[in-house]
C-alpha cells in the first residue's frame, strides 16, 4: 500500500497550518474581509481617528452605504437615513425640523453629516459619545424610524441579501446589532469633505480659487472683530464643544442641559462645521434662521444676551459690501466634489 498520498496530504495540512499561524497583519489586510477602504485625506487634515473595533474596510463601508439608503430600517419601510440626510444638501434635509415615520415631526433640525470622524460628540446636545452608538438613536426614535433595534436585527436576518453581506463584512454568523452599528458608522466616516474653494486657497496654494469679494469675506470671517473662528476655526471650520451663540434670551430646547442637567449649559449646542453651509439651510438647532443673511444679521446684532451666551458673541457693524463679502465667502465653503461624489450616493 503506497504511503505517498498520505504524506502529501500531511505536508499540505502542515503547510496550511504554518501559513495560518504565520498570518501577520499585512496578510490579514490582504484577506477580503479586512481589505482597507482606500481613503485619501484632503491636504491639511489630521489623521482620522478610527475605533479599534471598527476598522474602515471596503466591505463594511459598502454595507453601511446600503443600510444608509434602505427604508427597511424604519417600522413601516418608508424612511431611510437618507430621507433626512440628503447628499446634495450636504446630508441635511432642507426642513426646519425633520419629518419621520407616520409624518411625525422631531424637535430639531437635521445636522449635516460631514467629517464626522473628527467629532468628539454627536447630536446637537452631545448626548451620544460615538458614531456607532449614534446609530441606535434615529432607528429607535418614534419620530424618525420608530423601530425597536432588536426587531430590526430580526428583520434583516430574514432578508434575502443582508445575512450574506454581514457574514462577508464581519467575522460573525448573522446580522446583529454590532454589525449594523459598525457598518453604518464606517460609511459615515468616509463622508469627508475638504475640497471647497477655501480649502484650495488655504491648503492647496490655489490663490485664484477665491475671487476678490470672497477673499475680503474670508478676512472678515477670520478677523478678531467678527470672531467667527473662535468657534468655527481649524481644518473643519468648527471646534469640539458646546456654545451658546445667543440665539434666544430664553431657550425652549435646553440644549446641553438636557443631557448634563447642568443649568450653566442651558442653550449651549454643538458647534457645527460650516462646510457646505450654503446648501444646509435652514440654520441652527431648530432651523429657525432661513438663510445666511439672517445668520449674519444675528451675529452682527450681538445675540439676545442669554446669561450663558459666549463672550465671543459681541456684535459688529458691516457695510453693505462687507455683508455681501461675508455672505459670498460662506458660499465658497461649498465642496461640489463632496455633494456629487458617487462613492456616497445611492446605487
Amino acid at each position: 500500500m503506497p504511503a505517498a498520498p498520505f504524506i502529501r496530504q500531511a505536508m499540505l495540512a502542515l503547510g496550511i497550518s504554518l501559513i495560518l499561524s504565520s498570518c501577520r497583519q499585512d496578510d490579514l489586510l490582504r484577506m477580503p474581509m479586512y481589505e482597507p477602504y482606500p481613503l485619501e485625506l484632503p491636504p491639511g487634515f489630521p489623521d482620522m481617528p478610527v475605533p479599534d473595533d471598527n476598522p474602515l474596510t471596503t466591505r463594511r463601508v459598502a454595507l453601511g452605504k446600503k443600510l444608509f439608503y434602505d427604508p427597511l430600517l424604519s417600522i413601516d419601510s418608508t424612511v431611510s437615513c437618507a430621507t433626512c440626510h440628503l447628499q446634495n444638501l450636504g446630508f441635511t434635509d432642507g426642513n426646519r425640523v425633520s419629518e419621520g415615520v407616520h409624518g411625525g415631526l422631531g424637535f430639531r433640525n437635521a445636522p449635516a453629516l460631514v467629517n464626522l470622524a473628527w467629532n468628539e460628540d454627536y447630536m446637537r446636545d452631545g448626548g451620544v459619545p460615538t458614531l456607532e452608538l449614534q446609530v441606535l438613536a434615529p432607528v429607535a426614535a418614534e419620530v424618525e424610524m420608530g423601530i425597536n433595534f432588536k426587531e430590526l436585527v430580526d428583520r434583516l436576518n430574514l432578508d434575502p441579501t443582508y445575512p450574506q453581506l454581514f457574514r462577508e463584512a464581519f467575522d460573525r454568523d448573522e446580522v446583529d446589532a454590532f454589525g449594523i452599528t459598525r457598518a453604518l458608522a464606517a460609511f459615515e466616516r468616509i463622508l469627508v469633505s475638504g475640497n471647497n474653494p477655501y480649502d484650495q486657497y488655504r491648503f492647496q496654494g490655489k490663490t485664484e480659487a477665491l475671487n476678490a469679494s470672497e477673499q475680503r469675506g474670508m478676512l472678515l470671517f477670520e478677523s478678531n472683530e467678527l470672531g467667527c473662528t473662535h468657534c468655527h476655526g481649524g481644518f473643519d471650520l468648527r471646534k469640539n464643544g458646546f456654545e451658546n451663540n445667543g440665539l434666544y434670551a430664553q431657550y425652549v430646547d435646553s440644549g446641553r442641559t438636557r443631557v448634563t442637567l447642568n443649568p450653566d449649559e442651558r442653550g449651549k449646542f454643538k458647534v457645527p462645521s460650516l462646510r457646505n453651509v450654503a446648501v444646509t439651510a435652514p440654520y441652527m438647532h431648530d432651523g429657525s434662521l432661513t438663510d445666511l443673511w439672517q445668520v449674519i444679521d444675528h451675529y452682527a446684532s450681538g445675540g439676545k444676551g442669554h446669561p450663558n451666551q459666549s463672550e465671543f458673541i459681541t456684535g459688529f457693524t458691516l457695510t453693505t459690501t462687507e455683508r455681501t463679502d461675508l455672505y459670498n465667502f460662506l458660499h465658497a465653503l461649498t465642496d461640489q466634489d463632496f455633494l456629487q461624489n458617487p462613492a456616497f450616493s445611492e446605487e
Partner: protein
Amino acid sequence: MKYFSSKLSIFALILLAGFFTLTSQGCGKKGCMDPDSLNYDPDATKDDGSCEFNPEIMAHFHSHFGADALTYNQNYTLSSGRKVNLSLAQFYVSGMKLTDGGSGYSFDDTYLLVKGDQTVYELGSADPGQYTGFTFDVGVDSAANHSDPSTYETSSALSPQSPSMHWSWSSGYIFIKIEGMADTSAAGNGAVDYPFELHVGMDAMLRNVSLSQALDATLNNEVEIGMVIDWSQFFNGIDMTTPFTTHTMDNMPVAMKVADNVSSAITLE
C-alpha cells in the same frame, strides 16, 4: 482508487494512534469524568459519581401588587384607594454580591433584567460558603451604563431589548420601566384612563438593596434566594392627580421618588 486507499491509510493510522493512547493509560481508572466539574480527572475512564460542582445561585423575584400576585393589565387598588394597572414592569439588577464577614462573592459582569412576568433568574455558580446576605443595585453601574449595547452578546441583558431598555439619545440604560394606566381624577372616581410611563435612569438613580439572610452555599447544591417585588410600592409619594409620567430628565421629582421606593418595593420572601 488511489484516493480511496489514502483515505484508508489515514483511518488505519488514527485507529492505531487511538489504540496506543488507550492502552498507555491503563484500564478502568475511576474518577470524575465531567470536564466542567471542580475535580475533573482527565485520566478517569469510569465515572464514580464523585464530581463536585460549585453551588448554583438562583434568584426568585415574585411579582406582587399589594397583596395579590401581579398580572399585567389587571386593575388594582392602591392603599390610597386609587385604581391603576400595569402593562409592563421591569428593572435592571447589577452589582450582585453574596455577603459574609469578609469579601463575599461578587457576580461580576452579571446583569439581570427582572420582569414583572418572570420569577426565576440564574446568577451562575459561586464559591461555596456560609453567606449572610444578598446585596445588589437596581439599575446599571456607571461603567456599563455608558457602554455600547451593540457590543454585548444577544443573550446578555445589556444587549438591545424589546421593548427597549436604552435611551439612545443620551446613551444610557433605563434602569426602571413601569408602564400602565391610572385613575388621575381628583376624586379618584375609578376611571383608569391615563396612560403613564415611569422611565427612570441616569447614574444618580442607582439604588442599593441589601437583604440579610443565611445562605448555606455548599458544593453540589442549588441555592435559592426568594424575594418579593411589591410593584405598588413604586407609587409611594407620587401625586397621582397630575400627569405623573416621567422619562427622568423631564420630571425629576417623580423619577427620584420611583428610585427611592426601590428599598420598600423589594423584600425577602
